[in-house]
């Protein structure tokens, strides 16, 4: 490079008039483009968050009514009823309930009476029976019983039935509405909090259906998932992070884990179906199988999280432990693992929360069975919260729409709780090195 080589170029530096109108309008356009890009970004965020807002509010809007249930509070004098005290379960509870209901609106014709009884849940007799079996002293005199209204009348009570629509287009007749208004006038219809939603198991009738079975099924599945994936995940992570030699095999394991974390969950369901149910002959619909499948699914994520948190513990701590004569195992299990534990726990809880929301693999192993009592253990058939939501969403009865939304709100509540615990753990115990 020499001075001469570039001399003629140096002379002709074009003078740019930055203040020319051309340049000014060009800059204006450039700034406008900048603002446009910013606006697009904001619109994208508003779109995403708006969707979230609509999602949540539509669930709350459709679901809130399921947190209350219209009931009729009826006083029954059982001392006069013909009941064999030694065989409570076999007494004519249906007659007892119908008699009590009849007393509320006396003098109906037979066909009107049938219409009248339709207003109450068809399982009222069992509710009364179970209440008496639980407390036989009720037989000695008058006591009050709470009978849920059947789904269409629950909706009527909640104002979800438009009385102006032609009679043929709604599920309650004008006559029934009249009877309903009479009952309201007598003050026996009320709308308390729907505890049945949490303490009843599934039912064909919306007014009786609850989440107890699904919640305990999810609990047992998550328990199995945690018991398996937590120790195995930590053991695998420690081995890969601290012991494993760098070779083809560990590379393969590494790639494998990363890939497994992205395998569709439904494939794990196929694995569970073919291996656990097909080859090992484990029971269908059981939380043990659900938990096993979920643990295989969460394992890769858990290993990745644990490795990251082990990596974040400074090596000076390991060296200090080794320096005072601890074995490698002792250094890891006495010093590094406890320090990494808060982060590992946070990761584990978040993985469990993901597993709680997972439904596809559970459908394939049959955890969408119709089961009317909560499971007592991991080997009994049951459903889980998300599969219960799936089943209710598919049910034709109108009352299940509200219940599905309510069940989703319950599921989201659990997820918020778990994530909240994870965030709390992180902020309370996590160290920054």
């Amino acid at each position, binding site marked *: *490079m020499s*001075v*001469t*080589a*570039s*001399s*003629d*170029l*140096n*002379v*002709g*530096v*074009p*003078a*740019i008039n*930055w203040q020319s109108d*051309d*340049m000014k309008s*060009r*800059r204006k356009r*450039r*700034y406008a483009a900048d603002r446009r890009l910013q606006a697009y970004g904001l619109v994208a965020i508003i779109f995403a968050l708006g969707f979230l807002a609509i999602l949540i509010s539509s669930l709350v809007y459709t679901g809130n009514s399921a947190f209350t249930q219209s009931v009729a509070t009826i006083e029954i004098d059982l001392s006069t009823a013909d009941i064999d005290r030694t065989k409570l379960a076999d007494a004519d509870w249906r007659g007892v309930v119908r008699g009590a209901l009849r007393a509320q609106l006396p003098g109906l014709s037979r066909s009107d009476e049938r219409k009248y009884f339709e207003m109450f849940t068809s399982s009222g007799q069992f509710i009364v029976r179970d209440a008496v079996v639980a407390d036989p002293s009720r037989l000695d005199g008058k006591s009050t019983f709470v009978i849920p209204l059947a789904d269409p009348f629950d909706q009527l009570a909640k104002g979800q039935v438009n009385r102006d629509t032609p009679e043929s287009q709604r599920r309650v007749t004008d006559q029934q509405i009249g009877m309903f208004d009479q009952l309201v006038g007598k003050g026996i219809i009320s709308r308390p909090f729907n505890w049945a939603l949490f303490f009843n198991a599934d039912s064909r009738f919306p007014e009786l259906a609850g989440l107890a079975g699904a919640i305990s099924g999810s609990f047992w599945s998550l328990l199995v998932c945690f018991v398996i994936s937590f120790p195995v995940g930590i053991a695998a992570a420690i081995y890969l992070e601290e012991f494993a030699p760098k070779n083809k095999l560990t590379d393969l394991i590494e790639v494998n884990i990363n890939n497994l974390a992205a395998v569709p969950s439904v494939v794990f369901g196929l694995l569970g179906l073919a291996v656990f149910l097909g080859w090992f002959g484990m029971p269908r619909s059981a939380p043990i199988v659900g938990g096993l499948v979920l643990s295989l699914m969460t394992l890769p994520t858990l290993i990745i999280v644990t490795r990251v948190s082990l990596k974040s513990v400074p090596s000076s701590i390991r060296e200090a432990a080794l320096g005072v004569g601890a074995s490698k195992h002792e250094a890891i299990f006495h010093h590094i693992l406890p320090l990494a534990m808060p982060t590992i726990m946070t990761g584990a809880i978040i993985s469990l929360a993901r597993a709680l929301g997972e439904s596809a693999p559970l459908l394939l192993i049959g955890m969408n069975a119709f089961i009317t009592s909560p499971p007592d253990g991991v080997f009994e058939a049951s459903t889980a919260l998300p599969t219960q939501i799936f089943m209710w969403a598919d049910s034709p009865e109108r009352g299940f729409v509200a219940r599905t939304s309510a069940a989703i709100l319950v599921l989201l509540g659990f997820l918020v709780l778990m994530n909240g615990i994870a965030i709390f753990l992180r902020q309370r115990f996590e160290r920054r090195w």
Partner: protein
Amino acid sequence: MNMMSEAAVEKALDKNMSDAPLKMIGKDVSVYYGEKRALFDVNLNVRKNTVTALIGPSGCGKSTFLRTLNRMNDTIDGCRITGKITLDNADIYDPSVDVVELRARVGMVFQKPNPFPKSIYENIAYGPRIHGLAKTKADMDRIVESSLQRAGLWNEAKDRLQEPGTGLSGGQQQRLCIARAVAVSPEVILMDEPCSALDPIATAKVEELIHELRTNFTIVIVTHSMQQAARVSQRTAMFHLGNLVEENDTDKMFTNPDDQRTQDYIMGRFG
């Protein structure tokens, strides 16, 4: 123009260094990063077609001052500037000033070569394209060629214009960045330790280039190396702990500085 007159111009410039017209004026410039104050009422002028070197120990505020000259500090959160800086007697911190225009007029070359992950051609065409300096493809080709010529990179790069700029060597990358800055025809070029990441041979080439660029551009260079300041600059400013210690002709600065601290620094007693 022949070589004689070129040298004559140079000589004339060298002689009348203190008389060259002022291109940029910094008056009572202070910079704060959040609560921390990084510059204390600096008064420093940049003369036209002159290389001004900013020297001083690390953390003395020389880079900070350099970045105030094209408002690069605006991109840092929590950075605040007081005082006044003018370019051709117009306040560059005036709200009516357009930073985009300012930065086109006051270009910058960074410590580490930072070519964009694009071809050599696109690296240089980027600036002229956003500012709309080329009407036609031929215009653009001309700008790219002359910029590479000026940066002394044309012979090395003319056959590989479509290859990625990141494939060049470190020194070539830095000259590419200089060419990129030159392509927008700035009036002032700021250089932030442009040779600190380069080997001695590449450094020599860049220094020679700076020397040539002075004919058409006003240059402000931050450097760590006293020798480099002595080699390339006509004016030198010495910073210490956020204060401007001394500003003087380079010859005088390195032979007979006014301030004791400058003397100490030049003699290698601190820094």
